[in-house]
């Protein structure tokens, strides 16, 4: 079974500083996803990473993938209050019937 571990589970950020969320997964995956969820809302797709070395950036968020280490990182640059949310990584694989397996989520709170 494909297992996905995120850390930290909770992250209190100070505005203006940089932080990283880590996502490890247990077996070969085809794709890695990052989602954002605001309280009481749906999951919003942030990034899809397909291959080793992939790096994607959108605003203050940058995601990267190292398939050899089975590790993805979500880097937050100069945190702002609007980034407060829960961030999930998820992976799927043809070996796992393309079941999207989620990490436990990282709850981010940005304080002034």
């Amino acid at each position: 079974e494909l297992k996905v571990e995120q850390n930290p589970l909770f992250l209190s950020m100070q505005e203006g500083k940089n932080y990283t969320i880590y996502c490890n997964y247990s077996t070969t995956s085809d794709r890695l996803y990052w989602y954002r969820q605001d309280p009481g809302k749906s999951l919003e797709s942030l990034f899809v990473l397909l291959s080793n070395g992939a790096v994607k950036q959108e605003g203050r968020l940058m995601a990267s993938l190292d398939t050899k280490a089975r590790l993805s990182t979500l880097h937050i640059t100069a945190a702002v209050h609007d980034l407060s949310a829960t961030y999930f990584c998820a992976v799927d694989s043809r070996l796992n019937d393309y079941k999207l397996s989620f990490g436990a989520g990282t709850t981010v709170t940005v304080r002034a």
Partner: protein
Amino acid sequence: DTAVSQTPKYLVTQMGNDKSIKCEQNLGHDTMYWYKQDSKKFLKIMFSYNNKELIINETVPNRFSPKSPDKAHLNLHINSLELGDSAVYFCASTLSRGIAGYTFGSGTRLTVV
């Protein structure tokens, strides 16, 4: 236009009742899913249908029965509701098993009292 829509958004019901949640997508996707998000925000897949055929059936009590009348719709019927069924249920869809990414509905918050 909402891409993946779920109804109802909120559902409060008593233990022992039977209830249904409906999901429709207008993206032309061929694969649909039900996920359960518990109180700790953990998301776990329950079922998946590809072109109306059940392809994933996780370890879910058989009180839960999905139905897909066509590839744009996936409903979830729950019999004899229990307190532990309280959660947020998300519908999701994709094309060709993930090639288009996954689009999630807005969720149905089920509370069993």
